[in-house]
């Protein structure tokens, strides 16, 4: 097909993965699958950051990816602890059942 890869290809790939993550967050009711879609979105952004960092030979992009990965790990730890607590109290991880704050 193409002989060369341009930065556009990386932008489109990252964009499609991001939109797949968005559709996953919007259409699923299982809290863990929603969490996994958020991880997919984070990964797509990391890929784009690394692509740009490699295009401009600037290490700042990859350092930022390092920090993003760390933040994602911390967020997954705390988020899964919250989901486990919700399951203990309501016996369900359906996000439609976590509506006690609704008026």
């Amino acid at each position, binding site marked *: 097909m193409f*002989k060369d*890869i*341009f*930065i*556009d*290809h*990386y*932008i489109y*790939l990252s*964009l*499609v*993965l991001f*939109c*797949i*993550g*968005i*559709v996953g967050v*919007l*259409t*699923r*009711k*299982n809290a*863990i*699958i929603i969490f*996994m*879609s958020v*991880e*997919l979105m984070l990964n797509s952004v*990391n*890929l784009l950051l*690394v*692509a740009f*960092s*490699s*295009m401009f*030979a600037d*290490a*700042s992009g*990859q*350092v930022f*990816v*390092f*920090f993003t*990965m*760390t*933040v*994602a*790990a*911390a967020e*997954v*730890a*705390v988020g*899964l*602890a919250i*989901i*486990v*607590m919700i399951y*203990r109290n309501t016996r369900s*991880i*359906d996000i439609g059942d976590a509506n006690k704050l609704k008026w």
Partner: protein
Amino acid sequence: MMSVPSAIFFFLAFVSIFCGILVITSKNPVYSCLYLVITMFAIASNYVLLNAQFLAVVQIIVYAGAIMVLFLFTIMLLNLNSNSEVHKSLLFKFLGAIGGGSLLLIVVAAMKKSELSAAPMILPNTNQTGMIQNLGQVLFTEYVFPFEIISILIITALIGAVVLAKKDVKIIEETNPTH
């Protein structure tokens, strides 16, 4: 004809997108986890293609090796079945797909108007920015303050996760009455 790195990129892109779609459409949560692991391996291979070697290894160790294992443990702890999830109605799925699709459409339209660099990416990359020496140089001189703050963040998340997931003594006594 296609050069080999270009073919590798298209293969990895196809694998990531296909497994990404399978992540969000699988009925069994364990299958979704495994497809996400494959997607992360595809992205790590993309990092290797861009010569971000340290990040590729960190992605496999941290994301595919720690975070996804944590997901799998939680799914098995919660004992999820493949048919225990009530699906949203077709209207909501349709609206969700429209929402994601419209973002895709908008950014693709914006990309058509933009004039990005016309130089092709050099794959596999040869500049040494992704090597651990250069990355460590930048990380420990320019970004040393965020680096220290991130360690505090990890400690906070660790303490938070342990405090949140600890069982209340009251709940233990209710479920296992000892007296």
